[in-house]
């Protein structure tokens, strides 16, 4: 009986979380007239006009494509860089391994905004400003500390005997890394990659600073652009539709990998 009292705040918070998101979905099917007439109401019909407008007139299609490239290239590059380093730090005894680990991990606590000013000029010098591949590189490196942190803890659970017997069978250290360690840490690699991908898909501020022309905009910049346009054009339905486009892939990923994401996020968050 007394559990009802506990359930009230739980139900209320669920509503507080879900209602704005559902409201956004509903809004993406409403015409401007309907949004103005009744912000809380349902649309009269399920028209997809807002989505087609966002997709064609506001070039969401290009930004979705750009975001995909940045996300995939960034996530892959993070792995290529982080897996060997995590393996070396965790398994190869060398002088300074602990120091290197501390260096990477403490970078997670430093305000990167200080580095963004020089990074802006550095990218300009490398001709990588306003370039989605340049952005993908910056993203990949920005997630290195976190990725190395998570992967070393995953790799520490792999039994050492497996590597040793592989080495006795004549596998080179490169082979051990590629054929033994990488497959055995796959569950950690998948977890951290999903989290990095969500991060890259969602990122806004570095994209704002490092990208300039509209055809290079990522999705985050495109919806920010539509949002500021909407102040003048009142294209609220289109804005709702583009917000929906931005979160649907994340919802799908979350639905599939819900447990992994939650676990990885909390493990990754325990730092400092």
């Amino acid at each position, binding site marked *: 009986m007394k559990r009802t009292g*506990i*359930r009230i*705040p*739980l139900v209320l*918070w669920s509503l507080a979380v879900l*209602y*704005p*998101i559902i409201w*956004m979905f509903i809004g993406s099917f409403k015409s401007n007239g309907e949004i103005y007439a009744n*912000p*809380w109401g349902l649309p009269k019909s399920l028209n997809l006009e807002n989505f087609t407008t966002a997709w064609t007139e506001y070039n969401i299609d290009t930004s979705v494509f750009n975001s995909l490239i940045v996300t995939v290239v960034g996530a892959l590059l993070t792995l290529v860089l982080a897996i*060997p*380093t995590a*393996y*070396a730090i965790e398994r*190869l005894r060398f002088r300074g391994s602990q120091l290197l680990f501390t260096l*990477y991990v403490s*970078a997670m*606590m*430093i*305000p*990167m*905004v*200080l*580095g963004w*000013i*020089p*990074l802006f*000029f*550095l990218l300009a010098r490398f001709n990588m400003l306003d370039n989605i591949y340049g952005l993908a590189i*910056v993203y990949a*490196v*920005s997630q*290195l500390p976190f990725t190395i942190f998570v992967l070393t803890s995953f790799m520490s659970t792999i039994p050492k005997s497996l590597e040793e017997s592989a080495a006795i069978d*004549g596998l080179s*250290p*490169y082979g051990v890394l590629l054929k033994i360690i990488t497959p055995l840490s796959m569950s950690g690699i998948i977890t951290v990659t999903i989290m990095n991908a*969500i991060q890259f*898909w*969602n990122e*806004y501020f570095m994209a704002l*600073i490092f990208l300039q022309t509209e055809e290079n905009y990522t999705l*985050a910049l495109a*919806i*920010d652009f539509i*949002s500021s346009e909407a102040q003048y054009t009142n294209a*609220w339905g289109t804005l709702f539709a583009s*917000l929906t486009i*931005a979160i649907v892939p*994340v919802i799908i*990923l*979350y639905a599939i990998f*819900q447990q992994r*994401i*939650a676990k990885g*996020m*909390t493990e990754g*968050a*325990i730092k*400092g």
Partner: protein
Amino acid sequence: MVQSKKQKYLFLAFCLIPTFVMFSIFTLYPLFSGLYYSFFEWSGASQDKEFIGFSNYIQLINDEIIPMTIVHDYFLVAAKVLGIMVLALFFAVALTQLKIKEAPFYRIVFFFPNIMSVVVIGILWTFIYNPSLGLINSGLQFIGLEDWARPWLGSEKWALPSLVIPSVWAGIGLFMLMLMGGIANVSKSYYEAAEIDGANEWQQFWKVTLPLVWPQIKISILYIVITTLNGSFIIVQIMTGGGPNNSTHVMGSYLYEQAFVQYNFGYGAAIGVMILILSLVTVLILQFFMRRERVEY
């Protein structure tokens, strides 16, 4: 197979050097040159970079916007720590200890905002606060409290507090999960012993759960403080851009404005150094005050 030393070093280099080079170029070098830039007056064109010593820092001390941005940042830190920790702790305890059947549903729902983009969250909440179309004002009107309706983000008094709600909304899930992990590690025997001693649920929370979950609470608080000082400007930039009349400017959004809008890159870098120092000092102070003997029963 015996590896030669040379092969071993080659492999080590293969593993470590590419990553370290990339990290140095795109993380270490920018951080250190950020420090270096803070001693220059620089509008971005390479010819006019002029060494001016500590002038940017002197300007920083005399800039009357700076104290406001610091106050705003710490206001957000305090409000977020309080809001997130109280709610997250409550939800974590409710979902682990009270045997609620639908707990997994709440766990999934509460975490969901944590995977949403801060742009989506910011724009969505800007809309919720919209004076004429938003959920809040129209909702207040609906329940007959139209006197309470106001242009939330357009009001110097209400804009900053209005930013706290989306931040808490977006943050709770993660910390709830972290605390749930901590609570799951507390052995059931402590609760059984407390129950035998006649402690009610409320006393069990204060005497058993809270002390034993303290490490997770401490990490959560530090994490909120760091991420807020280092990243609160993102939600500010999206929802208010620092306005109205600087009433929501935080250190990071002011840095962005100085560097990337006004092209005072040297001054922006000096603000960045200030953010770095303030967040390091804050973390050290907090760690000192939150030092507490590890509880063993």
